[in-house]
């Protein structure tokens, strides 16, 4: 009986082994992945510990990955404890860099002060949420935040566009949005419904923004929200809604996200570097690398790049660390 059991195990292991050798090549090719390390700087060594916001994580991970091609002896790690969890570790001197989807709060600042942790703040990118509608939607061009709140409230009973605004037709409302794991979901629910995670649940959630795009593309009464950069990859297929938060309609664009006139659905993203860390050459090299490559990094991570003013500030901050 036991012999038979071990036989089964052997068969199972052999099956997996055979499968490993038999299959392969499921990845779609990715030309952007070609990385060269021609100008690699091997003189830098050490490690950089980044932790914090899961929204900023794709950007931090990308920066870490590409930086390590330039400086192969530096090991960069990225954690995703969340913005608040990241600051708790940062102020406890456990991490070098804290990434955040909002500025540090006074109480977090106080915690850092109590531990004697000083830091420099760097805005590393901008995040904007675009509201998209079907091309055939001719009635809605601008939506107020109050209407958005009616549409997305946890107890919302709106089923047609008319329920939102009586001037709009009784076209059925089909809602699309990101899954609840997404930073975009947290940000949207907080900005529109006042509480992170507060949202009606009868919409089509997806972690794949392309599904949102396809869904809205196929439904006349469709409405979805996603990162602005995703929309910008498919501008012809969809219409963009302007948002009115009380001071007129503003269309989301790189400019209005950068200067924060597109409220409340735009925000800057931050990284905080502890002063202890910036004493180390590898951390300063990382900052320099980031500032120099900010445009391509934010673009690849599907965020909105820094405004000229923001970039100038970042450059000044980076230059100020050199000494």
């Amino acid at each position, binding site marked *: 009986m*036991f*012999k038979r*059991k*071990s036989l089964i*195990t*052997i068969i*199972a*292991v052999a099956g*997996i082994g055979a*499968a*490993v050798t*038999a*299959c*392969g*090549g*499921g*990845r*779609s*090719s*990715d030309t*952007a*992945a070609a*990385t060269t390390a021609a100008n690699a700087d091997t003189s830098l060594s050490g*490690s950089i*510990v980044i*932790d914090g916001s899961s929204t900023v*994580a*794709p950007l*931090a*991970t*990308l920066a*870490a*990955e590409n930086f*390590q091609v330039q400086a192969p002896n530096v*090991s*960069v*790690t*990225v*954690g*995703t*404890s969340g913005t608040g969890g990241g600051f708790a*570790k940062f102020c*406890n001197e*456990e991490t070098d860099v804290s990434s955040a989807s909002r500025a540090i709060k006074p109480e977090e600042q106080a915690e850092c002060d109590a531990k004697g942790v000083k830091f420099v703040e760097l805005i590393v990118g901008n995040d904007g949420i675009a509201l998209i509608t079907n091309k055939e939607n001719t009635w809605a061009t601008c939506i107020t935040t109050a209407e958005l709140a009616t549409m997305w409230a946890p107890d919302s009973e709106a089923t047609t566009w008319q329920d939102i605004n009586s001037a709009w037709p009784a076209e059925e409302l089909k809602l699309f949005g990101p899954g609840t*794991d997404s930073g975009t979901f947290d940000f949207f629910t907080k900005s529109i419904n006042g509480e992170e995670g507060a949202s009606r649940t009868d919409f089509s959630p997806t*972690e*794949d*923004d*392309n599904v949102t795009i396809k869904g809205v593309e196929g439904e006349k009464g469709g409405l979805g929200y996603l990162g602005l950069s995703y929309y910008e990859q498919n501008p012809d297929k969809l219409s963009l809604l302007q948002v009115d938060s009380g001071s007129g309609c503003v269309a989301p664009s790189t400019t209005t996200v950068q200067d924060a006139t597109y409220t409340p659905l735009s925000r800057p993203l931050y990284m905080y570097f502890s002063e202890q860390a910036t004493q180390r050459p590898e951390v300063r090299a990382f900052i320099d690398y980031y500032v120099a490559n900010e445009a391509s990094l934010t673009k*690849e*991570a599907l965020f909105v790049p820094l405004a000229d003013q923001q970039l100038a500030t970042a450059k000044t901050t980076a230059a100020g660390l050199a000494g």
Partner: protein
Amino acid sequence: MNGPTRTASKHAAKAVEHSLAGRRHRSVTATIFLGYLLFSTFFGLIALTVLLFTIFRDGLPFLDSTLFANGPSAHPALAGARPAIIASIMIAIVLVATTLPIAIATAVYLEEFAQKERFWIRLIELNIQNLAAIPSIIFGILGLAFLVRGLGLGPVLLAGALILGLQMLPTVIIAAREALRAVPDSVRQGGMALGATRLQVVWREVLPAAIPGIATGSILGLSRAIGETAPLLMVGAATFVSFNPELLTQYTVLPIMIYQWIKLPQADFQGLAAAAIIILLAILITMNGFAIWMRNRFERKW
């Protein structure tokens, strides 16, 4: 004249009918019950088959050498799980080297040497049983407060491994005690009668006889620890690690890697996550295979 007889026979007939109906009823219940038992038996099997089928269907095309050779990457074409695989195996080794000796020694002491009526022995036993019922995230908090911050170990692989070790300790102790208890007393008495000391009896007779049971329990504990995510996230395992982890460096493990990939929007990462699950399964099956081999090797009949 035959009135009462007829009534009696009628009663009798009714009673027979009743009991027949009852028996029929019972047999229906029995059939339903048997069906339920069969359903329960196959339920787990069906769930496992569906699970394995989906994972292999999604993961096999992504199971290539890149997955073993590369670190994580934002590009699906380059992404691999090498640091996570190495860390998971290293954690297993640390657990075998640290937790198993402590757990087995504890079990041997409690079963073979301790005077069970002493109140502090009973206190220890009670605590071990309670420890086995504590949710893993609580161990994570303990690890963060005690190992990472208290001892100043930092968020390193060793801290993660030790906290997983602490978590699996009660499981292994309990399994090892059961295995020791299953060794017949006649073995001990026979050894003693031949003039062996207690230590000799335990070391040469009882412990070898208990190895199959101890191995099974240990592997169960170990397998659970390798698949654990929550306490490691608590003690500061990172999510992006591209270098080979060492005992005192940052690390990430396969379950965390899988969780990260599943969350990413690109479809290729879902496939990579499934492929990483296959690797995790392979590691677990290899460990289980080893336990079964141990059991067969040392199995004895009394």
